[in-house]
């Protein structure tokens, strides 16, 4: 399988990365190089093989469903680029 310019632009849009025409054209070649490399996986017989979900056989540890953290709004917004009274600010999303 390989990607064309339209696919690269669609994937960039899904990934929320703005790409120029020139970048998109360069990426077509690069991505096809990588996709060509991974293509060899299709020759592996995986009949009856389960996909890996965990490298170590383990049951995920669970904790009691109680509040253990919080009350640190100042800390949470401390690194945000734009805030107002402990809210994150974003461009207007509702008309």
């Amino acid at each position: 399988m390989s990607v064309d310019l339209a696919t690269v632009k669609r994937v960039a849009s899904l990934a929320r990365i703005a790409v120029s025409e020139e970048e998109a054209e360069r990426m077509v070649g690069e991505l096809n190089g990588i996709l060509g490399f991974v293509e060899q996986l299709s020759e592996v017989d995986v009949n009856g093989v389960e996909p890996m979900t965990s490298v170590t056989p383990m049951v995920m540890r669970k904790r009691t469903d109680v509040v253990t953290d919080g009350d640190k709004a100042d800390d949470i917004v401390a690194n945000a680029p734009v805030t107002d009274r402990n809210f994150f600010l974003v461009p207007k999303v509702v008309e």
Partner: protein
Amino acid sequence: MTELTSLTIAEARDKLASKEIKAVDLTQAYLDAIASANGALNAYIAVTDEKALSMAKASDERLAAGKGGALEGIPLGIKDLFATEGVHTQACSHILDGFKPKYESTVTQNLWDDGAVMLGKLNMDEFAMGSSNETSYYGPVINPWRAEGSNQQLVPGGSSGGSAAAVAAHLCAGATATDTGGSIRQPAAFTGTVGIKPTYGRCSRWGTVAFASSLDQAGPIARDVCDAAILLKSMASVDAKDTTSVDLPVPDYEASLGQSLKGMKIGIPKEYRVDGMPEEIEKLWQQGIAWLKDAGAEIVDITLPHTKYALPAYYIVAPAEASSNLARYDGVRYGLRVDGKDITDMYEKTRAAGFGKEVKRRIMIGTYVLSAGYYDAYYLQAQKVRTLIKRDFEEVFHAGVDAILTPATPSSAFGVADENLAADPVAMYLNDIFTVTVNMAGLPGIAVPAGLDRKGLPLGLQLIGKPFEEETLFKTAHVIEQAAGRFSPAKWW
């Protein structure tokens, strides 16, 4: 007096405990070394002088009171991937511009709890994506090693290039690092240092910037096997904050050094003999086999038939997980923000400006292989192949093999801005061909220096062990180290 920065962790620990040296003097010696070397090597991207000296002062007080911890007063460098409270933490990416976390990663907290001193944050490939430390927003790290009679700048490997270079150049006593496809072991091999990627789950991932969550694992880079054992003991823990942290006691790894290899079975996988591999690497491998045989181990030929599929499967699984993990960098909660005409435009412009080329490439691949219509063909297939890769190892271990010996890398360190590698991402990816299988199977792997090539550059061997049997790796690597000796670069910086 011998230079303080030439002491290993084990040596410094003993001299600190016996009050022969002071933690403050040791830390100051490293800060001076960093100040004079960093312009040439670019290993540190942030130096925390004041914090280091105040931590060292506290160490001296605890040592005086006889209350020193296992790493009391030992100055360490920290890879920029670990969250350090109030200190530069950007995974060497522009998108985390100005980020100073309000929390400390579990691994670094463990080190501070044992008395270690933080010298600063170390350079790395952006988001740990790279094998040469050239994708860092802060520019490449320069390897302290040079080929004999050459001034050419060489890469230290990656992604933990800053960690490896700082350890090799004695700009810290030891360093933290992380390994997703070879990022501890390949730079260790390129710099003549020791690096261990422990079993997945051995070190907590809490507070470590995520790249590919099912593969990422923290570990140390150190000057020798003993120092690596001391550091891993402190870094590893059982952590309720990471659900993949394994509930097993952390052994005293140092105690395994010097144990006999008699009765051990070492596997030699024929699939690691790849086309175009320099003859010197094959020679080094044979030398390693001879050393282990001399030490009483039995050598057996083994086969790991799915080895060649590990790298392609990795380049589906890792980018897929990365594309998901890196979705959080949206210009809203932390780091860089580039304004746009609406929220989507803001996201797209922020991510375009904040991520470097290699990171964008991997996010794009990850997004593509997870997108509707391609998921089964790529991602599901890769996860099935991963099961087969792990099964290969399980069968070998089941047949009685205790550890596997392979080369660590297919070459020694290469030049900065190598044109062939820059033009072909896949050629750069091939650097991890011997290390990536270990991440795919979640196993522990150690790289130990074993010799120099004809250019005078270090080469390493890799040992792969059973899950949670890092002790076996330490004792076997120690035998190689005893036979090969240790390697230090000639100082030019």
